[in-house]
């Protein structure tokens, strides 16, 4: 039985930076670990570089908390059979959206406070 606290995305906020980056990567679709790392580097212009254990520790936490899940990927002939694939859960999508909204609000405030000529 789910409680309100479990499904309330706000209870997960603020998300740690690495978790949010991984969730953002998964919003584009299912990914294996290495592709997630590449996505995170690209989306952060190389500022966020996750090592292997940081990445898989983050994925473990997201899976434990029900925000992402591992699933049986339909593999093509070129796919590495050893790779495990991950995707967002419904809760993960809502939490990711809520975090994006929260950050957008901060950006709005920052831009308003730091208007050209005020610094």
């Amino acid at each position: 039985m789910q409680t309100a606290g479990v499904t309330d995305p706000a209870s997960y906020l603020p998300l740690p930076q690495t978790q949010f980056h991984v969730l953002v990567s998964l919003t584009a679709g299912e990914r294996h670990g290495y592709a997630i790392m590449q996505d995170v580097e690209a989306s952060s212009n190389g500022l966020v570089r996750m090592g292997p254990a940081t990445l898989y520790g983050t994925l473990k936490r997201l899976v434990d908390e029900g925000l992402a899940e591992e699933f049986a990927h339909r593999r093509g002939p070129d796919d590495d059979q050893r790779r495990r694939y991950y995707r967002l859960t419904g809760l993960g999508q809502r939490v990711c959206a809520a975090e994006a909204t929260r950050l957008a609000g901060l950006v709005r405030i920052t831009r308003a406070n730091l208007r050209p000529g005020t610094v």
Partner: protein
Amino acid sequence: MPGAHPIYHTLVRLYPKAFRDAYGDDLVQHFDGLVADRGSRAAWCRAALDLAVTVPRYRLETIMNERHSATTISVAVGLLAAAGVASTLVDIGLYPGGLLLVVALALGIAQRSAIARALRAPDPHRRRRRLQTAAVLGVVFVASFVAYLMLIGDTWSTRDTVLAIIGNAAMIGAVGFLAAGLLTPKTSQRHQHNRAM
């Protein structure tokens, strides 16, 4: 693991067993991918920093779990009992040694009773409660010590005995709860709920 770098493969053994069993192959495969894509030097730069940060962190997370928290209490009982016996034997005094033994006995009984079950029951606030209890007991200890200094007389009185009992018990309790609190995992409410589902 064909192609796995043997040194990195060996270093992965530094991670806790549960993490290693779940993600060890992924880590090695990921490292191989880094070497293939960016070269050995870049891969090692990233992996070295990653290892330095995550090995102690994941090890610490493993230590800070329920089993170790319960173990801490067992160790505390043993240490208190040993200190009680030792202080009696080395002529520090029968009274403080006896007090330590009483506290150890009480803690030992409590560990096997409802208190112990409560300590191990899923409760997202238990870490905070233990630390709060330690803080309260610490304040009681300091207050009793200050009162003892302010009221100290030429002869040992019943009042001094009462203050000593309160102060010693509060100090031992504060240390015990502080240790148990620090070793209790910072489990979030949502995490507990998700695990319960």
